[in-house]
């Protein structure tokens, strides 16, 4: 954020992004469950990644928290395993993706950043799951989760790349560059 105060334009922009991410989150929850705890498509990650790359890190954090809370309210409820998993996973993947974008932008492409995000999201979800059942053996599922995380991460990265290109043409959207 360039200004200290949040302008109306920023507020509207963040609200729109939170809405889109929440809807993707809810749609994802309606799809049939993949038989591994924590495996998801990560569609909402498209919006998080786009926000981080084209608007800013703070806005990305707002979108992550907002969509976890809203998506869980419309889905399984706020006190649920799904909420804890999506919030912790979202926060870790936001942190990793922001770090990778801030310090290694020249080094990594958007697809790589998205892959790191989806893998760290799954990792954080396994951490939450292992705390819930107090069993470390859950991490044996990590290689299995990777089989889902890698294709979905690449897909999310591709979608985000085209989305960022398209949104860059809209004035006031691309406030970073």
């Amino acid at each position, binding site marked *: 954020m360039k200004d200290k105060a949040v302008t109306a334009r920023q507020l509207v922009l963040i609200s729109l992004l939170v809405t889109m991410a929440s809807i993707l989150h809810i749609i994802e929850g309606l799809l049939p469950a993949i*038989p591994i705890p924590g495996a998801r498509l990560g569609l909402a990650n498209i919006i998080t990644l786009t926000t981080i790359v084209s608007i800013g890190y703070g806005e990305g954090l707002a979108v992550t928290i907002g969509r976890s809370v809203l998506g869980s309210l419309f889905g399984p409820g706020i006190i649920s395993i799904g909420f804890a998993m999506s919030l912790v996973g979202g926060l870790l993947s936001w942190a990793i993706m922001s770090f990778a974008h801030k310090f*290694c932008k020249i080094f990594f492409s958007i697809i790589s950043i998205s892959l790191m995000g989806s893998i760290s999201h799954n990792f954080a979800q396994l951490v939450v799951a292992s705390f819930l*059942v*107090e*069993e470390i053996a859950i991490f*044996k599922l990590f*290689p299995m989760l*990777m089989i889902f995380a890698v294709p979905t991460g690449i897909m999310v990265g591709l979608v985000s790349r085209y989305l960022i290109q398209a949104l860059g043409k809209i004035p006031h959207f691309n406030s970073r560059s």
Partner: protein
Amino acid sequence: MKRGDIIVLIVLLVILLAGVYFYFFHQNSQGTIVIQVDGKTTSSFPLCQEGRDEVIDVHGINGITTVLLQDGKVRVIESACPDKICVGSGWLRSSAGAIVCLPNRVVIKILDYEDKDIDLR
């Protein structure tokens, strides 16, 4: 394709190969099936026992998880949870992997050797 992408690809490939090794070259017939509820071991069975076709009920947090034990494999056939991820997990045959029912806090895992649960923790 940037330079960092190649590093990411190599790391992914290494993890993938490790996973393949882990899942396909890690078979053992001398195992123990361990069933845990909320972090506490409630029952354990030998992995291999010829002609076994046993159905047991595990009392989880939300209800009963029905587990089917056969010779060298184990699966969940019915569970009192909303998402049925544990039922969809299918058969568990080796120590690679685990069947987890998060809403019911039930974990089914296989130990490579007989009753070494305390050592592994």
